[in-house]
């Protein structure tokens, strides 16, 4: 903010404090990744030490196991399908909320906005019964469908202001060219709203990739486990093999971290935008 005047570097105390902050925030992450390169005896002797020598075996074991890749596959299917569903349904509903005037629009907006206050925790027990009645227990759609529904509030809240910001002149111009409102949606709104769509898509993807409570209820079968359940199962199954648990854990956080570092600006912008309106 205050970069315009004076010394561009600022005070050294600021850097020291910032460095300390980063150390604390990244310490546990570094512990997981580096710990995966140690052996169990190294960890037992000195729980907080550095690998000596570095062991790549734990990581190779995990990468060679079918379990890990099956869980990566399940998590990917669930996250991709959830993201596609959230974005498709969300952008259509947001377009209606942003561009049409009709009775009940306020109520519709309120419905989605209220959903923002209640994460899945409150609804999980009856939701599980619903999924059981639908015969979707131990299936991936049993995770995907509820996740789409619970992802809609954030998506709508972020996209409505975004779609409303599309200049009216554009729509009027397309209307003069004989383009219907739906044609306007397809040819103008979707291409123009790609940045907003990317934001909600990434939020949906990371939310799904990290999701724990819903899979915990719906998936009881090892074959259908997603990565978070897999991490937990792995860490109780190999509770004595700490190094391998750390390797498994650090490999399973890679996709979320990669997505985040690629699209960090959009995620941060989207979240702050959603909260500040």
């Amino acid at each position, binding site marked *: *903010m*205050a970069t315009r005047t004076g010394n*561009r570097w*600022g005070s050294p105390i600021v850097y020291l404090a910032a460095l300390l*902050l980063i150390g*604390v*925030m*990244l310490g*546990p992450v570094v512990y997981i990744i580096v710990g995966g390169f140690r052996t169990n005896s190294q960890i037992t002797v000195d*729980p*907080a030490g550095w690998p000596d020598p570095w062991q790549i075996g734990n990581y190779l074991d995990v990468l060679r196991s079918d379990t890990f890749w099956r869980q990566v596959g399940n998590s990917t299917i669930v996250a991709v399908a959830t993201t596609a569903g959230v974005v498709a*349904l*969300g952008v*259509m*509903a947001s377009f*209606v*909320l942003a561009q*049409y*005037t*009709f009775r009940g629009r*306020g109520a519709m*907006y*309120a*419905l989605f*906005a*209220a959903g923002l*206050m*209640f*994460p899945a925790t*409150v*609804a*999980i027990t*009856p939701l*599980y*019964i*619903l999924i059981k009645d639908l015969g979707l227990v131990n299936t991936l759609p049993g995770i995907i469908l509820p996740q789409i*529904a*619970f992802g*809609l509030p954030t998506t709508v*809240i972020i996209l*409505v202001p975004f779609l*409303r910001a599309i200049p009216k002149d554009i729509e009027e111009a397309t209307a003069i060219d004989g383009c219907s409102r*739906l044609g306007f949606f397809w040819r103008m709104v979707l291409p123009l709203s790609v940045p907003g769509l990317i934001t909600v898509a990434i939020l949906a993807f990371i939310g799904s990739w990290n999701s*724990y*409570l819903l899979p915990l209820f719906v998936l009881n079968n090892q074959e259908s486990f997603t*990565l*978070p359940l897999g*991490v*937990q199962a792995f860490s109780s199954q190999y509770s004595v093999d*700490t190094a391998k*648990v750390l390797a498994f854990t650090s490999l*399973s956080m890679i996709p*979320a*971290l990669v997505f985040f570092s690629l699209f960090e600006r959009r*995620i941060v912008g989207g979240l*702050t935008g*959603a*909260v*500040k*309106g």
Partner: protein
Amino acid sequence: MRTSPPLRPRRRGIGWAQRLEITALSGPAILMFLAFVIFPVVMAAYYGFYRWKGFGVPTNFVGLDNYVTILQDKPFREALLHNGLIVVLSLVLQGPIAIGFALLLNQRMRGQSVIRVLIFVPYVIAEVIVGTAFSLMLQTSGAVNGVLQSIGLGSLQQDWLSNRAIAIWTLGLILTWKYVGFAVILFLAGMQNIPEELSDAAAMDGASYWQTQRWITLPLLMPTIRIWAFLSIIGALQLFDLVYIIWGQYVSSTAGTSTMATYMVTEGRNAGNYGYGNAVAVVLFIISMTVALAYQRFVLRRDTEGALTGGR
């Protein structure tokens, strides 16, 4: 909650074609939302009146028995107390720390954007991973005690997770680590919306850095802080993942970290008492709803627009 999207009057009347468009475009989203969010919550209220194992149609109607049991059950009251403590801990730990770091990062400095990315990393990592890592680091023979030993502070070694006197503080610190980045990012965004002219003018009038922060930045940041506090309170009331992962289903109550949500899962689903579990869900819903509405009514009301719901 203020929920009024601003009017943008359209000149065309609302004909049947338009109604069809509205239905076709918003129908799928509304149906999904009603089916998987609203319907389950409504059904919870119904199931909550039955003693029911989750098979077939519930028949054993018990009226308010489940609710009486919940309110009289000591573990539930303890869980409620823990939730209350977690709300307070989240606010008093994360709030000041986040304001401090946002002020820090709002200074002129190089590498600000890199730091912003890095402090947000814990927020993006899955709860399961955070839980697994911290339970390994904090166990009696774990890395935290190891570090304390090696830097000569061995007397500070603790049984971080199972000592009832400190487990809830441990939880508070883990939550701070996981979620403070979110608060910092929000506050930074709020600070960067404050016109620079204000602090420039204050500086010209001879205000010190701290005076400027105290009398200009903080007051103007209050709307953002109030919204963050709202999200933080709702999150703390419904806390489940980290507690369940780190303390497991049984240890959490003896370690003094159980929450209403972990109580709901252990006593409901894990015990096979679905009627009871649904009643707990209803209680959790009512408590969250009451707190949310009260907060909206008494705290958020003074902010000009319902910022959370995006009415612009």
